[in-house]
């Protein structure tokens, strides 16, 4: 299932390492597989590595779409 969750980078530690936070849990993560990560960015964390960045705008868009689908808005449901 490739367990991976979005986590927020709270500190860059240098050497391709960073500290992240998720729900009050903080842990080290490697940034060796991603570029240009800044504090405050969300990344997808898998086995201690960021395997990609999380696009917050896209996340919001998806949530809006879900909300409108749930509301049964025809636009959202139009295939």
């Amino acid at each position, binding site marked *: 299932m*490739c*367990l991976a969750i979005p986590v927020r980078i709270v500190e860059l530690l240098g050497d391709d390492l960073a500290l992240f936070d998720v*729900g009050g*849990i903080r*842990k080290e993560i490697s940034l060796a597989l991603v570029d240009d990560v800044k504090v405050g960015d969300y990344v997808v964390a898998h086995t201690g590595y960021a395997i990609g960045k999380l696009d917050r705008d896209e996340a919001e868009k998806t949530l809006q779409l879900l909300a409108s689908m749930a509301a049964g808005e025809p636009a959202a449901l139009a295939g």
Partner: protein
Amino acid sequence: MSTVRKAYVRPLDLKNGRVDMTHGSGGRAMAQLIDELFATSFDNEWLRQGNDGALLPTAPGRLVMATDAHVVSPLFFPGGDIGCLAVHGTINDVAMLGATPLYLAASFILEEGFPLADLARIVASMASAARDAGVPVVTGDTKVVERGHGDGVFITTTGVGSVADGVRVSGDRARPGDAILVSGTLGDHGVAIMSLRENLGFATVVESDTAALHGLVAALLAVEPDLHVLRDPTRGGLATTLNEIARQSGVGMLIEEARLPLREAVSAACELLGLDPLYVANEGKLICICAAASADAVLAAMRAHPLGRDAARIGTVIDDAQHFVQMETAFGGRRIVDWLNGEQLPRIC
């Protein structure tokens, strides 16, 4: 002629000393360890008898006896240590039969080389937990095993308690229709422990919930003497404990995910490690099953107690020949909450 002086024994070096094989030999070094550390810390009239067992007053009511070996690693963790855990764990097993815990016995298996400073810290924590709980450690035992044949310290505690007339708490008394309550947030202890494990380590504010629950139990029995089942969801967590009770009582259960009290940090740690918080250990929580009619009163009594502030009614006992524990997911679906299979290991997929 020279005067004869009183024998002088250099006191235990509780700062830099270490356990060595002589501390378990039965001889003077062991007597010194017992005198200067154990007897001093746990001091009470029964321990002071100085025999290999304790002679205690006649106990009123039916007796309860429970024992648990404590082997936690690491020995010190956020919110507690093996010492207070060993006191709470056994007090809780006694209390879960509706009994008033009266006495504890404690047996220590020390590993050669274990720092006496750590041992002293653990014993102090045990002693203060026992004092706070009002349950004295009345007898004990100390063994030392060679380095590499133990793990610092193992502590087995055994508790004896007494059950008042009219109380009939037992795991086989859950009946369809009964309410299932839990006294607070789930998984705190297990997550606190995991946060310190090598190769997993993370920083967290989550502390172990280790606590003695007999006061809470007394408060519940005060409002409903006929509680059906009490059990502390320790190893295997809520899920396994409910399955145990379901099997014992020959019933099914239906719980509601949305009602389960969970700290965000516990959920987050579980997401991160691929664990299910329903299987993570608790050390200061209890499950209470009682007639639906008294559920509100029992829940109110729980919430009024400092150890039950986050209590919740999480489900209902149902009739089920398969003794399944089912859960209505927060999402609206339904699934089994099975026994723990194997041990819960962190996953990556």
